[in-house]
């Protein structure tokens, strides 16, 4: 895309993006386990009745 190239020329000092190899499976599994733990933790604190909570959250318009 010409526009994009033109802009890139104006920023020669920018570092080239480094394309990292995909994370090792072990690391990927660890991240997923962490995210699963987070979701479980969030289940504990979520509003009990999501539908009622969303419906009853009504504000007056402000600025």
């Amino acid at each position, binding site marked *: 895309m010409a526009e994009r190239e033109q*802009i890139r020329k104006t920023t020669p000092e920018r570092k080239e993006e480094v394309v990292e190899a995909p994370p090792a499976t072990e690391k990927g599994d660890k991240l997923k386990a962490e995210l699963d733990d987070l979701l479980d933790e969030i289940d504990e604190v979520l509003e009990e009745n999501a539908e009622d909570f969303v419906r009853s959250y009504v504000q007056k318009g402000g600025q």
Partner: protein
Amino acid sequence: MAIPKVCGIETEYGIVLRGGGDSNPIAASSLLINAYVSSLHSKVDWDFEDESPGSDARGYNVGGSPPPEVETHLVNAVLTNGARYYVDHAHPEISTPECLDAREVVVWDRAAEQILLASMNAAVQLLPPGQEVVVYKNNSDRKGNSYGCHENYLMDRTVPFGRIVTGITPFFVTRQIFTGAGKVGSEAPGMGSEVSFQLSQRADFFEEEVGLETTLKRPIVNTRDEPHCDPQKYRRLHVIVGDANMSEVATFLKVGTTALVLAMIEDDVLTRDLRLAAPVQSLRRTSYDVEMSQTLDLANGDSITALEVQWEYLTHAQKYAETHGLEAVGTQVGGDVIRRWEQVLTALEADPMTLADQLDWVAKWKLLSAYRERDDLQWDDPRLAAMDLQYHDLRPQRSLFARMNLERLSGDDEVVSAMTEPPLTTRAYFRGKCLQRWGDQIMAANWDSLVFDVGNDPLRRVPMMEPLKGTAAHVDQLIRECATASELLERLGA
């Protein structure tokens, strides 16, 4: 040269009385603020003498339509940290004290959240068992009602307003790629089912390019001309287009990059014409484009992505730092802003998910996407809408933001201090210190004056028309040396 970008944030918070049936939000907001203020030593009322929200920066006063409402009868207090805490449009609102740079704004904005939290804890003591007031730092109730998080920046009055509009509009339209707080769905008419998730809380509510309104037909550039300081020398650019951020990095970048772009506009160094063909449509298009791949039409016929617009401003800022220096935004803070700005744009281009520990919309997107995937939910599932709201719950045990462990820029100790102590660097220091020392003799306060009542004399007004006079460097010794408010007034010649 650009003048120092004195700045601050004012946030209207969402409020709910839980366990109390139908509640009146004005009553709940008043209860919240009164509970906090009555836990402090004394209360000083706000003074409306110099307020004129109907003045327009384009050079006229609004006559035809009524000026924005100012609810003078409601709770309105000035705090010893120099902030204003009040009820506005049925919401509790805190305006931070005037700050000198983006990092100070982060600290006093975080302190404002802690003041709200302390207020909730104080209010629960006054309520019947089972009831509590809960506050949310967001901008919409998901039903088409929006409330704002406004920024303010000091500008040189001699800069033509038209140049500000031209220079800042493309920036405002596109900065949401890092300032957006994220939202499930859309509240714009007809868009409900089209948008599953968008970058910004506020983009749905903007209908004009330039204007005076803040509650209806909201404009991208607001023209309220109410400088709260010497109107011959300064203007205060009132920015209503932003989201309230939970993320400190987002707040830092929002204020830091905006201050920098405004300094560049003052010094007239923005050379490339980035005027958009349709700013309002582009604002929404950018917000709805989570992939950040769509192009926006420029007025000159070219097209450009939101990221490319931001790279363009960043490139200008990097050159500006070399040619003009960054004094106007704080030399060190300005350098930090430019480095982070570059890092964030680079990461947004490569893999936005790597910013889940820095930006609100990415953190929210990551959390909701994972939850949705795990439970195989549609985007319109109420559980996702509930999580969207609960991300902004200020109660630490309920806040989903708090679970996401975003990077902090402030320290806990400095935030606690900022709940009661003003910044050292602006006139807020004089306001805050006078309130600490002689709060019971200050009848009223506002941004640009304090009114003292020292016994038999007439009331004495101390004007503070210069935002950078009254700093710790100017008045700390004077205040320490004065045993009484009368002595202070005498030495000031007031």
